[in-house]
């Protein structure tokens, strides 16, 4: 909404400077977005919120200034000389759809001389961003900017039958609007028609055939109330928004319809000559019943947290043209003016009082009682994950939840249902909701590789969207995706360390996974009590090639919701051991297809009660190992809680382990016959 300093002072002759006006209006909720000098005047651009259509005319803004400054509002006086001929004898108005058009008024002005507007009018419209057309059209625009009520002037002689019908458009009807465009109408749209055809799209735009031009002799001036929702739908359907539709969408004041009509008729008569026919053709069921709202002082204080003196409350409300009709027992009975359709409840009045009184005068005090909130487990787990991944050297990314067909179909570890599709995407090729974060990480790696970053170790914690048959909303599963460049065992190590941090690792088993996204034989899924906690693997060569990678990165994705359910964040300290551990290293030669898990299981079962730790430390294939075999080296730790173990006990345990490995896995010892206690650390 645009207006000027001088124009505001015509209605509210306050003594504030333009800068003070901008400040006061902004702090009352009329944000002045811009103010700039225009000649000897100042132009204000004001952001008007959608609940305040009354501020879409300069008078409305002047009224706010009046309430803020105490300067009385002065409305222009209207002197309308009406002729003897009755308008109602010259034009017939029929409103077929009173729901969409509660009030329609028409006025007739005959024998006008359509000419360019006088300089003062043309100049003011120009400053406000309107192109001057002629004295009649310019008056309708001027009164719109003054009062907020849109008006339309028809060339009366071009209206077939001298008749106005407010109705829905008929199937197949069309109209050429004043912007010269032919527009197809539908029966959802309200139109103004004459006896034959639509002559205007109600509340949106007039028709070219009946517009006022140099030839016009008689003008039919329309001032009406069209319902906002209907105007909004029509405006959107036609793809045209106008100053009129903008105001109708927000709601015009049905009572103000008559004032605007009278004001415009008087100005037209003044500027274009002509004779105003007697009376107003007014199709209006009834004025709306005046709204009365009570305001309790106690409630005002309870919402705002400050006591505002009753005199100040009364002054504010009266300044905004609310009428106080009664007062008793600490409450006011307030009559709401017709132009304030946004006010219907006590809270609306509280807001009026608060914003004119000034939010800055409400103190910053609190009666909030101190209470320690709890931190949910999911938050603790997620924060642990983020900090731990960062400590492991990974960089966190944030990706769009939207993805392309190509990325969406690369991998879907959690669901077979096709991804959800956005009906109105910004980019047609990015219309799917992701079911996995892993493709996003590949895309980020590719993006960075193009910028010369050869190594991008990335992770992301976010939702994936898994459609559920028969449900409107998808399952939104929190996932952690990790991209690691140093091989699958390094990635597995990261996953294990994270799971160990959350005390979940010991319940997990890594089992082979077959998925074309991963290289065959280089992928696993994490089995947590039969549920899939995650997947990990080396990206398949075909996938790596599509992203232009020379070597295939490894990716993992973990179901964080499941992780949260099983995570244990509590720490219980075990007593430290009193007696020393005895360490023995063994290296065994086994067949290629024997897994470490098998060896581990066998060793644990055979080593006896004093085995306190078992660690793999080397995998070897080479000259000393027969073909088709491999050597696995590991360290056993033995410890008893109540004494130092003897060499004989350890030897017996080792012998049992060796025997079990031989019997169950056909393993043979390699290297020193019995493990010598070794002092060097784990060999990589």
């Amino acid at each position, binding site marked *: 909404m645009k207006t000027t300093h001088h124009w505001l002072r015509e209605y509210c002759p306050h003594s504030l400077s333009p800068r003070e006006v901008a400040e006061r209006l902004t702090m009352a909720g009329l944000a002045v977005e811009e103010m700039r000098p225009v000649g000897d005047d100042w132009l204000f651009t004001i952001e008007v919120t959608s*609940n305040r259509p009354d501020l879409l005319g300069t008078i409305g803004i002047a009224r706010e200034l009046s309430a803020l400054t105490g300067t009385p509002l002065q409305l222009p006086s209207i002197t309308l000389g009406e002729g003897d001929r009755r308008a109602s004898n010259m034009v017939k108005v029929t409103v077929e759809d009173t729901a969409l058009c509660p009030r329609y008024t028409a006025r007739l002005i005959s024998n006008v001389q359509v000419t360019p507007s006088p300089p003062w009018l043309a100049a003011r419209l120009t400053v406000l961003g309107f192109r001057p057309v002629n004295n009649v059209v310019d008056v309708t625009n001027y009164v719109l900017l003054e009062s907020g009520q849109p008006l339309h002037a028809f060339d009366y002689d071009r209206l077939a039958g001298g008749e106005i019908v407010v109705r829905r458009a008929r199937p197949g009807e069309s109209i050429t609007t004043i912007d010269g465009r032919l527009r197809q109408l539908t029966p959802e749209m309200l139109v103004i028609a004459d006896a034959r055809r639509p002559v205007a799209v109600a509340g949106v735009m007039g028709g070219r055939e009946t517009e006022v031009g140099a030839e016009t002799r008689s003008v039919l001036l329309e001032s009406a109330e069209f319902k*906002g929702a209907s105007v909004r739908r029509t405006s959107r359907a036609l793809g045209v928004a106008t100053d009129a539709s903008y105001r109708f969408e927000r709601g015009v004041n049905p009572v103000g319809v008559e004032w605007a009509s009278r004001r415009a008729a008087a100005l037209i008569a003044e500027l274009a000559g002509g004779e105003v026919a007697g009376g107003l053709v007014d199709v209006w069921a009834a004025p709306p019943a005046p709204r009365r709202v009570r305001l309790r002082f106690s409630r005002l204080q309870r919402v705002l947290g400050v006591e505002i003196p009753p005199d100040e409350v009364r002054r504010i409300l009266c300044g905004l043209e609310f009428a106080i009709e009664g007062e008793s027992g600490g409450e006011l009975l307030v009559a709401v003016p017709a132009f304030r359709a946004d006010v219907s409840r006590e809270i609306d009045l509280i807001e009026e009082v608060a914003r004119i009184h000034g939010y800055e005068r409400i103190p910053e005090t*609190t009666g909030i009682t101190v209470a320690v909130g709890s931190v949910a487990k999911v938050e603790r787990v997620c924060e642990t994950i*983020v900090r731990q991944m960062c400590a492991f050297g*990974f960089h966190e990314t944030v990706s769009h939840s939207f993805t392309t067909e190509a990325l969406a179909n690369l991998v879907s570890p959690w669901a077979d249902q096709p991804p*959800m599709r956005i009906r109105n995407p910004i980019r047609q090729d990015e219309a799917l*909701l992701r079911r996995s974060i892993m493709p996003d990480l590949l895309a980020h790696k590719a993006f960075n590789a193009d910028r010369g*970053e050869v190594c991008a170790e990335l992770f992301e914690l976010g939702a994936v969207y898994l459609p559920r048959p028969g449900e409107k909303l998808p399952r*939104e599963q929190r996932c952690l995706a990790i991209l690691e460049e140093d091989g699958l065992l390094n990635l597995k190590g990261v996953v294990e360390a994270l799971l160990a941090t959350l005390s979940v690792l010991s319940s997990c088993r890594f089992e082979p996974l077959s998925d074309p996204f991963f290289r065959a034989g280089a992928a696993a899924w994490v089995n947590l009590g039969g549920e899939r906690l995650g997947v990990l693997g080396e990206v398949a060569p075909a996938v790596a090639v599509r992203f232009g990678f020379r070597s295939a990165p490894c990716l993992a994705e973990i179901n964080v919701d499941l992780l949260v359910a099983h995570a244990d964040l509590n720490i219980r300290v075990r007593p430290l051991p009193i007696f020393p551990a005895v360490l023995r290293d063994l290296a065994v030669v086994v067949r290629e297809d024997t897994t470490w898990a098998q060896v581990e299981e066998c060793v644990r079962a055979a080593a006896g009660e004093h085995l306190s730790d078992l660690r793999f430390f080397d995998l070897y294939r080479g000259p000393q190992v027969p073909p088709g075999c491999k050597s696995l080296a590991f360290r056993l730790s033995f410890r008893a809680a109540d004494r130092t173990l003897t060499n004989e006990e350890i030897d017996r345990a080792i012998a049992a382990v060796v025997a079990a490995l031989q019997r169950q896995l056909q393993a043979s010892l390699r290297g020193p016959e019995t493990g010598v206690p070794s002092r060097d650390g784990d060999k990589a």
Partner: protein
Amino acid sequence: MVESRLQELRTAALAAIEQARTAEALEAVRIRYLGRRGLLREVTAALGTLPPEERRRLGALANSLKESLTAALEAARQRLAVPEPTRTETLDITLPGHRPPCGSIHPITRVMMEITDIFRRLGFETAFGPEVELEYYNFEALNIPVDHPSRDSFDTFYVGDEVLLRSHTSPVQIRVMEQRRPPVQVIVPGKCYRPDTVDARHMFMFHQVEGLMVGEHVTFADLKYVLHQFARAIFDPGVRMRFRPSFFPFTEPSAEVDISCFVCQGGGCSLCANSGWLEILGSGMVNPRVFEYVGYDPERYTGFAFGMGVERVAMLKYGISDIRLFTQNDLGFLRQFRATI
């Protein structure tokens, strides 16, 4: 005779080696047993008088003893080895050290953690809600009717009939109030979506943190207190704050909240468009109509709500001028967000 003498020597020498506590003492043991005039030499010198067969056999025994003692001495020497003399070469301390890899936490996460942490200290708990949301929660229950201009600021992605990507975190207010009775004191961090044309200030996916407090005595003064506490903590202890009346369908009275520009301290600069103020969030008292939707008695309860854009806060805090950087995931950008708290 010789054999038993060799056996005696072995036992005595091993014991002496065992007992030596210094390198000097060990050397003395070596000289005593293995020296040119040592005890072993004494025994072997006598071998020449024996028959050849006997001499060969005992000679081998003596050799074996000599080897064992030599090995034992070597082992003992290592045991007693004094540390190597202090190294004298100079390390070029200007050479780069070997650094462990350092990761980073995304600026959006960082800011969300920081915001969450501040509100935790003020007694708020965190709540979450779905990003794919029902129209009812995104609009109707928040007093945003169909075909109303107040929807203009909430252009929305749809994925189905009455199913959309939430355009703000406010629907979680409704979900929380449907599940809990007052008092309620929560914040809601999360992703939101609006089909905005992408430029330096607009992105179709962004993050918000929503706040909601409901109780029997929650006032606008409490709202001002809480938000000013927050602004001081996240921006600057000296930050000033300004509440401007505004309109949101789900709060009344509503306020836009500005902070004093920390670049120009209110004097006017390009960051604040010469206004001296930076808009950071929207807020207000919960509209009684919203309470009616969730079955709270609006006479008994009052509350406040607020919502802020996380990108906006991050851009102000870190001096980021283009919102697109957040989802571009350029390592050069990400690395700058060190893991500080």
